[in-house]
């Protein structure tokens, strides 16, 4: 056996790019502009959810981390598919116009899933779960059915825990956001200028943060539990769990709110593009006796 120089390991963090990688990414980038025809968003003519699946990581327990998809809509479609195949009969559904439609978990349900999974200390066979196992739901971001609507030209936005437009998104949608009429959206209205946004927060700030509180449907105990976990697992940091929002809004728009992975400080993010990957939790079928 020989001894080699120890090499730094890749812990899967969102690492610092090299200058070359950053330049390659920025090359040819055109500054963001609102879509030319907002009522007719860009569409992938031939979407194939299965062809776009990545990292199919199954997690045993009450939830399954579904394979990552290349857009939010394809992730929702994948959920519809597994539901229609009877693979997740216990997954929450919503009734729209008399039809029962499977929906992504809400932001709050995702947080609950992480907290419960983290607090599960033993495997079904009685063996102790490792820290690594307890943190498995924290390793990738979790998309939700929670919408975040922005009002053009203002700092106002609304949070909609179960957002019909996102649940019904067509499978081939690959635009940045869904164009909407903000005033008609029913949700809790908040204002970016009334609290700290787009910056890391202390635990106390998180627990009292209006947008975090709204996102977890004002379940302060749950939010406290969750913040305890995050600040415990990232002991070295005093500030974590930012609430990212979109600024300089030129047009009313709807985006999805997700909770980021632990390495990225487990922030809430309402600023991402719907065309930029999907990552959902699926409720595992209950085990037959």
């Amino acid at each position, binding site marked *: 056996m020989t001894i080699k120089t120890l090499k730094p*390991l890749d812990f899967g963090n969102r690492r610092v790019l*090299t200058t070359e990688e950053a330049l390659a990414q920025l090359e040819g*980038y055109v500054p963001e502009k609102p879509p030319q025809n907002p009522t007719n968003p860009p569409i992938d003519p031939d979407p194939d959810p299965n062809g776009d699946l990545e990292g199919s990581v199954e997690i045993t327990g009450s939830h399954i981390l579904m394979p990552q998809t290349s857009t939010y809509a394809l992730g929702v479609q994948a959920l519809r598919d597994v539901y229609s195949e009877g693979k997740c009969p216990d997954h929450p559904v919503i009734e729209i116009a008399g039809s029962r439609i499977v929906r992504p978990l809400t932001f709050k349900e995702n947080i609950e899933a992480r907290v419960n999974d983290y607090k599960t200390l033993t495997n079904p066979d009685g063996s102790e779960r490792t*820290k690594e196992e307890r943190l498995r739901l924290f390793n990738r971001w979790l998309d939700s059915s929670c919408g975040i609507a922005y009002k053009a030209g203002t700092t106002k936005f609304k949070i909609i825990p179960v957002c019909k437009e996102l649940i019904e998104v067509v499978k081939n949608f690959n635009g940045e956001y869904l164009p909407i009429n903000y005033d008609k959206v029913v949700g809790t209205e908040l204002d970016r200028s009334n609290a700290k946004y787009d910056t890391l927060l202390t635990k106390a700030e998180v627990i009292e943060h209006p947008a975090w509180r709204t996102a977890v449907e004002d379940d302060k105990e749950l939010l406290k539990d969750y913040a305890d976990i995050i600040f415990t697992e990232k002991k*070295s940091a005093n500030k974590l769990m930012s609430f990212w929002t979109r600024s300089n809004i030129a047009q009313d728009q709807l985006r999805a709110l997700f909770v980021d992975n632990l390495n990225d400080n487990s922030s809430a993010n309402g600023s*991402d593009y719907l065309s930029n990957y999907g990552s959902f939790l699926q409720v595992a079928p209950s085990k037959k006796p």
Partner: protein
Amino acid sequence: MNELTYDELKFPNYVNSNTAIRLRAKVGEPELDREGKDARPLKTLELTLSDVVYAAELAGLNMLFVSDTGRGKTQLMSDVAWHHYGGDQETGQANWADGRPSFDITDLFERTRVDLDSGKFDSDTARQVKEERVKRLFFGVDEINRAPGPKQNEFFDLADGKYTFNGKRLNLGEDGYALFMATANLNKLNGDFSGTFELDRALLNRAHLTFDLDHPNFRPTPEDEMVIEERKANPKVDLAPAQDLTGKILTINKKILTAAKQLDPYFTAFRFLVGRGLDYCDTDKYKEKGAAFPMLCNECGYTGKDLCSMIKGSSERSIPAVKTLAYALSYLAELKLGEKVEIDPLDAVLQAFRFTTYHGNLNELVAQEEYAARNQTMMDETVEKLSGVVNTLRDYLPMMIAGQDPTIISYQFQGNRVKAPKDQKTVQALNKANISFQETNLKKELKEKGLGVDWVDPYVKRMKELK
């Protein structure tokens, strides 16, 4: 000679299955994904206290075991002496001494030959060194602090691997390998142990690694205690069957030392961090801890004093030991698992650093007042804080090793937060794309945490030269 096996190392009597350290590791041969990246999942590798002792033996690092009575430290040392070094009998490779006021080091290494026929006695020629004893690889002293201060000085030589005979310095051991191991009952708080003396700081520092067997993570588990209780009715130390592994240990030791001697930019950065970094004091007139530590830390109003008030810079003795143990842990992990194991150098070195608790770096006032003399607990919490700084450093190290100044810009790009080194071309590209960015700088981040940064520029300069 066959290679050393993990089974050969396993202690026959001492039982301690408590997980002393956890290391993130990739195990097995690399499996590449479609993008050519290593697809092996990260695993958490758990090593017991016995494993750390095996690793320290392979690294040739001196060890001091401290605890209350009945934690098994003498049993542990006895198992090492007999099961790894063949015991202290004629054929063995171990020397064993008990710390007591009457201890005399000459008893161990010298004999007096008197020629009765000649009727003359010349002390210079009559005194002879026991060469076979000097060449032994293991030197164990049980209850070292039962010997008073001046007597303890005699152990300095043992710990340094030297013995002075007739004015001549002799090297102990073989091929530069001489392992010193000692046990002590420390009067941590209430002075429970009468008949013991305070351990000399210089001696503590010569013990490259210290093991506090009272610490919850280092002492045997309740299950272990049951095993011990059931196994022996006799509470005295069990003598292990003699087994001499010295040849195998020496072979591995050479490999470990060769690897540890290489310049490694990750270890070098860590060395600076726990050396010059922790010796810095922002509020001191001369910007160094010096006499200010720890007396003035309590009153200090510096906002980032969380870490810097807990610990001062490590000595030149501690740091190489930590690096060598990190390599030895990597070797031991492979030996234990029987397959390829990769551990992160910064993870390994942080874990190894935990075993320098009694080197005099910790803020003794805080240790007494806030931790009730639970120094190892304080050390673990300090290392936890230090790991936060190390994580900050992780972001900057690749660019520093590439010879770039440690400044990171972060910006939102296509919905993601992106971090990249600050570079003129990148800044121009971002300006062109109308993307705003924020800057962070390693020196600023370290200073905010109360750590010295005078090493950063020379480090980057040297890396640039080596590029």
